[in-house]
């Protein structure tokens, strides 16, 4: 099958939906002729023009508000916030505003389709304000779907599903994955939101992860296989809604689980996964569930420090082997 990068897969989904529906439009900082700071929207401005791919001033609240207002009116905005770290300056819109509109008006507004695209993660040597993994915050908002693809294939299918969803969706892309190629069908396909994916089948332990950590987890599983441990790897893909059934099925089979996330441990997705497994698998477990997460500190600039504080294959392997 044809291989394209994660960034190209995202662009392909955007272009496809923009061709299908004039109401789909992109707005954000540098998304126009420049093509986005990570090049994801490259070429879309030339293809669709400035009214469909709108450059904005540096006004994150302005971007999110405009997107929300347009969604209220039946348009399908796709605002881009350059880094998830910048969500802090427009936090209101994904907490107090968009996800509450439908509920607080008693359903007068039926649909509020807006897909907020942003980027996450470390390893780009950008230090404490451009490298964080803040997805845990957003999973606490009822009414907001949170999606984090780990492969080019999933990126296209999940984004297409997000763009067809009629609710606010936060779609978080990992910067390190942008240039990673993968097999992606040319035709349209949707990966339903809320469905985790077993990326590798195994029998001895379930490794649960998402986004860029999934590839580290798969590498760790390969190494564990060489040591006689057959790990199953589950990719969450959507953090809210969380696919409790797939998690339960896997851990009821393997009887052990390690949950891996790039974010700091406190209040994160891994904790929620552990809670889900305690509900569904307590009687099946042969060992306490372990988690691997970033160190509880600010992401440092100095590369050896950053590498040491973020999760690694070695840390995943160590967690699996720890009694």
């Amino acid at each position, binding site marked *: 099958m044809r291989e394209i990068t994660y960034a190209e897969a995202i662009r392909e989904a955007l272009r496809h939906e923009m061709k299908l529906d004039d109401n789909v439009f992109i707005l954000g900082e540098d998304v126009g002729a420049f093509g986005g700071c990570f090049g994801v929207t490259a070429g879309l401005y030339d293809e669709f023009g400035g009214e469909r791919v709108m450059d904005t001033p540096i006004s994150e*609240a*302005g971007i999110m*508000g*405009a997107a929300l207002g*347009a969604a209220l009116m039946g348009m399908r905005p796709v605002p881009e916030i350059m880094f998830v770290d910048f969500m802090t300056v427009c936090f209101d819109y994904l907490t107090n*505003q968009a996800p509450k509109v439908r509920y*607080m008006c008693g359903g*007068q507004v039926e649909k509020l389709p807006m897909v907020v695209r942003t980027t996450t993660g470390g390893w780009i040597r950008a230090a404490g304000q451009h490298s964080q993994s803040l997805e845990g915050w957003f999973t606490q908002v009822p009414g907001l779907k949170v999606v984090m693809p780990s492969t080019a294939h999933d990126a296209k299918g999940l984004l297409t599903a997000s763009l*067809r969803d*009629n609710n606010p969706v936060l779609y978080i892309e990992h910067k390190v994955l942008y240039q990673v190629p993968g097999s992606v069908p040319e035709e349209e396909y949707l990966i339903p939101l809320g469905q985790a994916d077993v990326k590798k089948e195994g029998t001895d332990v379930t490794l649960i992860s998402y986004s860029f950590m999934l590839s580290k987890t798969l590498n760790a599983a390969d190494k564990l296989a060489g040591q006689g441990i057959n790990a199953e790897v589950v990719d969450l893909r959507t953090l809210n809604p969380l696919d409790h059934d797939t998690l339960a099925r896997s851990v009821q089979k393997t009887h052990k689980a390690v949950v891996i996330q790039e974010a700091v441990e406190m209040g994160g997705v891994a904790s929620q996964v552990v809670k889900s497994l305690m509900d569904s698998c307590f009687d099946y477990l042969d060992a306490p569930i372990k988690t691997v997460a970033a160190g509880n500190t600010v992401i440092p600039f100095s590369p050896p420090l950053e590498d040491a504080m973020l999760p690694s294959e070695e840390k995943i392997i160590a967690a699996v082997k720890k009694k």
Partner: protein
Amino acid sequence: MMDLSQEKLLEMYKKMVTIREFEQSLSEAVSGGTLPGFVHLGIGQEAIHVGVAYALRPTDWVSSTHRDHGMLIARGADIKRMRAEIFGKVTGYCKGKGGSMHLAVYDKGAPGCNGILGPSQTINNGIALALKKRGQGDVAVVLFGDGAAHRGEFHEALNLAACWKLPALAICVNNQYAISVCFDDACAIEDIAARSSGYGIPGLVVDGNDVMAVYEAISETVKSIREGKGPALLELKTRRFKGHFEGDPQSYKTPEEVAEEMKNDPIPIFAKQLLEQEITTEEKLKAIEEDVKKELQEAIEFTEKSEYPSLEEIYTDLVYEERRAV
């Protein structure tokens, strides 16, 4: 009185009295202990609600603040469903899930009140963008207080609206107090409208207690916006006669200041204009006031007879399940 018919003018008077009586009855419910939560009453600001509403077309949109039950009433919302919402009843516009601070009446183009100061200004740009795309000449209007004019969103919204030449009208309702902090302590200039020059858009200060002045200013400004000339900032100077929330004793105002405020009550001001220009008679105004009292009594009874939402409603209206079909 501009281009307005006698019928329209009396309708405006009736709306102003309706808003006053509606709000007054909420005040009584708060002191009587029958109304839960917070209410922020717009008593004293009725000329703004009615002046704005009557200068707009039904297809225009108008977003407002937590003090603007009156804006929704002026737009034609049913006071029965308004009151039911404020009391958390299932017959309310939002099935009792929004309450006073989040009352919205979308079929009147009124996303209504927002509990957070600032976002309605940026959201209004998105509404304006969609209206511009529809190309019918409709305008998106947003009301916000002098307090909210100091949020960063004021700047982000007006700058973007000006850059994109959106059909958006920003209306700062300056009642001189952000809860307890007076305008002079929170702002180094006299008029918020003066900030319009920073965005290259028109700005105008208007007496917000004179309904005809409000109507005229909005009508003219909106005309220019409909012609594609881009956004504008209007500042309507007014006073609120009640505290920030019902129960706030306004200890930050002197009795003299309160007495001075009351002299500019927009309802007697409008009544005087109507009488002086022989548009109506005292008797007719009295009859309108009686009608309003009757309608309000019906709204009170409707609310009392209405049920609270069923417990299943806790989890409904959160997510739209169906994916869009292509």
